[in-house]
């Protein structure tokens, strides 16, 4: 509450409500589908931005006002500190996913909103872990935010980039192009499959199902473990 995170989330809900009602007036046909598609995409992106800003700014404050040094001077493991932060931010993610999903109930069926909300929650967990990794690495807000958004955007678009590289319109055989193709393929192996997460199509066309949610949860848990390991590796080596 001190960060006014809840108020910010509610403000986004109010703005998105106004935006979506306005868009509803513009749509000639598929009125409800247009509204829910725009709302879903807007809320997903807003949730990612809000959570990233919150994780990075609040953790950086602990670094700057020496709270972290004070905590680390106590007889607790660095991993305990990390897991404590992670758990707290996961709870914040759950609250934001719940608020935004509740907003969607006005426009889409409850079962699809539930799937969307659960998927958003797991997507936000990855964003939280990524935010912590970037912050432990860079120690600065601009660099950490840029790192999170670049990796997030790459994870969302890696599939399209991979397809464009694998099936080029004009075939190429140069070494540089082959190197880039290999690099892009490597990215798809190392980045999470975020294109499967929180799909607007579920809300717009009711195509979501629990079977689609299983790979999302599986990928989120695996990648959360990987990011946590990276964060802990970096955190244990940091001098404060």
């Amino acid at each position, binding site marked *: 509450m001190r960060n006014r995170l809840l108020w910010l989330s509610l403000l986004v809900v109010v703005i998105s409500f106004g935006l979506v009602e306005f868009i509803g007036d*513009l*749509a000639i046909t598929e009125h409800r589908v247009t509204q829910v598609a725009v709302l879903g995409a807007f809320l997903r992106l807003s949730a990612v931005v809000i959570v990233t800003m919150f994780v990075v700014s609040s953790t950086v404050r602990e670094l700057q006002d020496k709270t972290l040094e004070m905590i680390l001077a106590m007889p607790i493991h660095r991993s305990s500190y990390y897991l404590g932060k992670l758990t707290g931010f996961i709870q914040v993610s759950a609250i934001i996913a719940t608020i935004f999903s509740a907003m969607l109930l006005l426009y889409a069926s409850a079962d699809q909103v539930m799937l969307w909300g659960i998927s958003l929650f797991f997507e936000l967990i990855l964003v939280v872990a990524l935010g912590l990794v970037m912050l432990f690495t860079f120690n600065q807000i601009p660099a950490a935010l840029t790192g999170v958004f670049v990796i997030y955007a790459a994870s969302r678009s890696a599939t399209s980039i991979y*397809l464009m590289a694998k099936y080029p319109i004009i075939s190429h055989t140069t070494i540089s192009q082959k190197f880039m193709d290999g690099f892009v393929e490597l990215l*798809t192996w190392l980045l999470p499959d975020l294109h499967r997460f929180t799909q607007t199509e579920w809300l717009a066309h009711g195509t979501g199902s629990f079977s689609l949610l299983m790979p999302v949860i599986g990928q989120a848990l695996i990648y959360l473990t990987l990011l946590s*390991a990276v964060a802990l590796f970096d955190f244990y080596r940091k001098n404060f």
Partner: protein
Amino acid sequence: MIRHYIEKDRPLRDVPIAVIVMLVVALAIQLFWHSQQEPIVAKAEDLPRPMSPRAYVMSSFGEPVAAAKILNLWLQAFDNQPGISIPLHSLDYDVVTDWLDTILELDPRGHYPMLVAARVYGSVSVDEKQREMMDYIFYKFNEDPNKHWRWLAHAVITAKHELKDMQLALKYAHALAEKATGENVPYWARDMKIIVLEDMGEVAAAKILVGGLIASGEITDPYELNFLENKIHTLEEKMTKIRQDVDK
């Protein structure tokens, strides 16, 4: 400097073994997970219908011309979707013309939509689709002949040489002669009807048309007059040849 960056962190031995094991295992699981996913396959998407021009104006923060230019590029590249190339003729031309209309409404001074109609979508190898696009150009020409004359001139050429439909070429050339009367329209465009008639073997009709044009006094450009007089001469030669062939 480099030494500072290497030594500013604590040594690797300070990282617990459990964390290193977790890192390696998690990376291995991520790679295994990715290998177990369905292969990524390119899927073609249908061209959707455009929204209203107003919606694009709003979503571009009141920049209709910028929105038109971006939509031009998006539409032009639609046949190249990630990992797949759709033949232009497999697009729904009814939807394509809706997009072209929308873009023209956003930027009425732009020629881009008419250019792609004539030279991109109108140059496919499927007659039916080509005719559809030529009809669209003819329709737009009738809305503003002095603005869109060059695209209808292109349609005349397409009808004559690609569709091999001389009647259609004549129809377009006739419209050019009748409606594109602005000063900006060059004489070669207005006089295309003569050439089409000549190619159709209607030499006498072409000669009457040329003679009528000269006699009307509307043509004052010396180059155009010269062109028409030469054309009369050529047509007379052709007519003489035809008569001689008939007499034989």
